[in-house]
């Protein structure tokens, strides 16, 4: 307790930056008691969010999502594959989340970050479990050919709430995805058709499996919000600094009809009681509406 007391006394005479580094928890708690965070946000407010579509020209669908300074770039490439015997009329989505050393000082070159495989596992779980994409739509010829979507998400700047930004960029990339035109050739193989070429026109008319570039219908869009539980406070959309100081993270993923797709909390000092769970779900609902608007603006453009 002596430490806490001394920090209280010092806070009056010490420089703010020094106090922040020496007593980070105390620094944050002083802010929280005023219902404010060091970056000027109220507790339940997420950072400014920007989504940009179609940045990667070599990919079939891509998006860049920014939540505060957390930046994710997602790109999807479609390839034709033979579907598995269990589901002959379904395509497949493979999700990979990358954390290159550029994103954070804690990631060292040559050593993959611990979080990366966990986030890619959670993303693929959520994309498959909430019926966002009808895998049957990715079928070309039943039992013979189907689309395989490779979704790669790169983290350019890891400043907290990685999962939220990754999911947002993935959803935006899927909304930007255009499935390329392909045709069956004489050997029964699938070939890509380049739009402008004359000699392909006859093939396209006869045997094009899908006539024109088309978009996927996204049935059910998941949105997520990460919150920090600290004592009686709930902080939405934490930065990396907040995540490192207060360690109880709750990630709620809700779908379009406000059902829980995932309620994820692993460990942490604080326990989540019923009221905390309810407030987190409420915050996630509000955040879902915000994100829906942001994505809606994109679609009009």
């Amino acid at each position, binding site marked *: 307790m002596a430490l806490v007391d001394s920090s209280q006394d010092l806070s009056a005479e010490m420089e703010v930056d020094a106090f922040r580094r020496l007593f980070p928890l105390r620094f944050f708690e002083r802010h929280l008691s005023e219902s404010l965070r060091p970056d000027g946000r109220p507790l339940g407010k997420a950072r400014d969010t920007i989504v940009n579509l179609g940045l990667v020209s070599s990919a079939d669908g891509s998006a860049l999502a920014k939540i505060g300074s957390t930046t994710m770039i997602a790109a999807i490439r479609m390839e034709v594959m033979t579907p598995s015997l269990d589901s002959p009329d379904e395509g497949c989505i493979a999700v990979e989340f990358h954390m290159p050393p550029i994103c954070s000082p804690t990631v060292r070159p040559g050593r993959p970050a611990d979080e990366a495989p966990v986030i890619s*596992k959670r993303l693929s779980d959520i994309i498959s479990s909430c019926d966002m994409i009808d895998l049957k739509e990715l079928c070309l010829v039943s039992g013979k050919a189907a689309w395989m979507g490779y979704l790669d998400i790169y983290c350019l700047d890891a400043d907290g709430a990685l999962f939220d930004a990754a999911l947002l960029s993935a959803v935006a990339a899927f909304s930007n995805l255009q499935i390329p035109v392909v045709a069956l050739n004489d050997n029964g193989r699938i070939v890509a058709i380049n739009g402008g070429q004359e000699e392909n026109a006859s093939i396209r008319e006869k045997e094009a499996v899908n006539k024109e570039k088309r978009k996927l219908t996204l049935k059910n869009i998941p949105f997520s919000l990460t919150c920090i539980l600290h004592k009686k406070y709930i902080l939405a959309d934490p930065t990396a600094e907040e995540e490192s100081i207060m360690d109880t993270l709750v990630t709620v993923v809700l779908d379009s009809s406000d059902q*829980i797709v995932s309620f994820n909390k692993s460990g942490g000092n604080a326990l989540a009681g019923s*009221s905390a769970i309810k407030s987190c779900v409420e915050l996630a609902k509000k955040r879902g509406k915000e994100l829906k608007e942001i994505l809606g603006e994109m679609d009009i453009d």
Partner: protein
Amino acid sequence: MEIDREDGRRPNQLRPLACSRNILHRPHGSASWSQGDTKVLAAVYGPKPGTRKNENPEKACFEVIWKPKSGQIGKAEKEYEMILKKTIQSICVLTVNPNTTTSVIIQVVHDDGSLLPCAINAACAALVDAGIPMKHLAVAICCCLADSGYVVLDPNKLEEKKMTAFAYLVFPNTTLSVLPEVEGEPVEHGIITSVTHGVMSVDDYFLCVENGRAATASLSAFFRKNFQQTQGAV
């Protein structure tokens, strides 16, 4: 209305539990935990001096190594490792042995559903066996949501596949002493860890939490009985 389960259990009935501790010779603490046919072996080495990079040397550090029954470790196992590590960190007293690392090794012997809860319970028993200072135990349970809106506890692999959604929940063990309440709820009602798969409504989630919480009372009692027995034997 009751729904029938393939193995004739009631919805809230757990599979037979078994736990034996101090079964391995080399580790500082070990335990095997089984729920029905799911069986997990846990071993604890430590506390060993030094911490890994990126860890806070002012606190005790934990590492979890997950060994699947066969084959290489994949993304799912990496996720389990991360969840288990964070869960253990939240129940252990980290300030007692600063700048040390404790390794927890989980070996899956057989997976018949509810694997992660089983591993968490096993790890807990092994930590107790190794004498690692802990705040309280963690009691883990898997709740499944059936199509008809019923909650089924401790499913086996077949049931896990059939269900629309399931949640792994970890609670603190129920204590016999009186603890201060947090916002009108007893401490043991708080969730340490929650992992869900599949879509469920908010009400269904609370139903899962409620049923899971009720079941942890019997799990806690089992822990307590088991630890008392071994104490008596020594």
